[in-house]
């Protein structure tokens, strides 16, 4: 890369050194101010009264029940959206049909709806004055101000995450490998499991991890439907809000630090998934041409056996 001829050629398509360093400098300062400082502040505020106070805040029963509720919510919401995401991506990416672009737009819809509106629609459905409110009251089922409402609101907000990740990936990969598998006698399920899934696994992991982060961290929608009953319908972000409004700053930031850790883990897994995917793509790109042609055949043989 550093031969003088190439360097001279590159000079025509890049900036002077001082411009480069200034731009990099501005970028790093901006990102430091807007991303690193807020992240660091969470941990600094949580530790302000020492490690013992931090642990104490997390051991509190209300904090503990908020953590459990958050985990339960994510455990229900993420698998539901995973199944939907794979089904939606399969039918949108693998087939041509009328109204496909409308369907794709509708799948994206929850992204652009304000979380507060998302919570409100479930209150209008299941709340005391809602469509199903009287019926639910008769049968003594609580949805709003209870766990089912929280789960529903979370499912709505995280609805498109996995589908959004998979659709472009599966569209880019095309149908040839799957068609080969079917021609060689694989069932639909075998085709998905042995041919499609290995191809999309990194995208799938990325989608799941982002969906999970949002499910655990959702605030607006959940705050409308939860009713903020301490120890019962408080998720972690809602618990953070209550503690913060009660001026229990250390306790609020202690719970918040767990969520920040979750975000960091999410970013690490995301980066690893991206690098692995890139490396696999590069490995395929580096194969001599005859092997590229052979690759789908190999896979489909495996699927058929």
């Amino acid at each position: 890369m550093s031969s003088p001829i190439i360097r001279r050629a590159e000079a025509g398509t890049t900036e002077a050194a001082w411009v480069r360093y200034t731009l990099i400098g501005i970028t790093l300062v901006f990102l430091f101010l807007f991303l690193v400082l807020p992240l660091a502040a969470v941990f600094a505020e949580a530790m302000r009264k020492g490690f013992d106070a931090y642990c104490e805040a997390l051991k509190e029963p209300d904090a503990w029940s908020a953590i459990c509720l958050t985990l339960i919510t994510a455990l229900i919401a993420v698998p539901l959206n995973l199944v939907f995401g794979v089904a939606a991506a399969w039918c949108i990416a693998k087939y041509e049909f009328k109204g496909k672009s409308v369907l794709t737009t509708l799948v994206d819809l929850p992204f652009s709806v304000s979380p507060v509106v998302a919570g409100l629609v479930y209150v209008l459905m299941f709340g005391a004055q809602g469509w199903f409110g009287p019926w639910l009251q008769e049968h003594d089922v609580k949805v709003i101000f209870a766990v089912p409402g929280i789960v529903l609101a979370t499912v709505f907000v995280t609805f498109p995450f996995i589908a959004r990740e998979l659709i472009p990936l599966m569209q880019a990969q095309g149908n040839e490998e799957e068609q080969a598998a079917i021609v060689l006698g694989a069932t639909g399920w075998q085709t998905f499991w042995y041919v499609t899934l290995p191809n999309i696994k990194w995208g799938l992991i990325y989608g799941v991890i982002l969906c999970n982060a949002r499910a655990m961290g959702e605030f607006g929608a959940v705050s409308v439907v939860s009713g903020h009953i301490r120890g019962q319908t408080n998720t972690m972000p809602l618990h953070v809000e209550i503690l913060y409004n009660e001026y229990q700053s250390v306790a609020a930031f202690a719970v918040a630090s767990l969520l920040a850790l979750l975000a960091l883990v999410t970013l690490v897994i995301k980066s690893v998934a991206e690098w692995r995917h890139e490396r696999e793509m590069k490995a395929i790109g580096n194969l001599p041409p005859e092997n590229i042609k052979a690759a789908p055949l190999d896979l489909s043989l495996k699927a058929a056996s």
Partner: protein
Amino acid sequence: MRSSSAAAAPAKRRAPARVLPGFKITLGYTLMYLCLIVLIPLSALVFKTFTLTWDQFWAAVTGPRVMASYRLTFGASLIAALVNVVFGLLVAWVLVRYQFFGKKVVDALVDLPFALPTAVAGISLTALLAGNGWVGQYLEPMGIQLAFNPNGIVIALIFIGLPFVVRTVQPVLEDAEKELEEAATCLGASRWQTFTRVIFPSIAPALLTGFAMAFARGMGEYGSVIFIAGNMPMISEITPLIIIGKLEQYDYAGATAVATVMLVISFILLLVINGLQTWQRRHSGAPV
């Protein structure tokens, strides 16, 4: 799965593209789940609105406090999205074009606002910018107040919207053909001319898409904003907070009316974003 492969058999006769099984079952499941989770609940909002008379609706959505909140939400989202266009482009440019130490970490960090719960972002930005915070303590003596007023809302929305711009511009910059820039240089263009005349037009659609996404997200944002805004009526009260306020007073009709306005706005923005994305695809596809 057996039934779905059987279902594909007649489809095979109609169109050769549908060799793969599972079309009916996946489409059916997608539509059912979409209706149950998204469409029916959203239609509840629309139907509830129709139970109001026009005058009631109009009074609810044009009250002075509500109007002030529209102006604030719209203005703050617009400013934040514009700031994000400038800095998002800069970040994307630096990440694609230059090499520096720690680039991979910086690249990963850009997604932080996607992964960090909004409430956490809200309290931590507030802690930073309040009078006794790390940043606030230096700004306060200079008379700059960033927390508990509309400035804070803009800051929170910049944080929330940044990755939208970076992540839409970045892939387009990566795919941009260096040959075009080489040609421009050979023809005597300065580097700045090359940027404004050759590079910028090719990334403009992506930039606009990113802007629209950041703007749309800002219009609906709640969690990160309410902590830093101060939430004073008429001054720093955002529209989602108006809905929450009306709900807390059991004014379901009023909340629904305002929510319908927000839903219509997000529909329009969604259509705009979709149109922009189609334009972007055509734009990038055309010269090849």
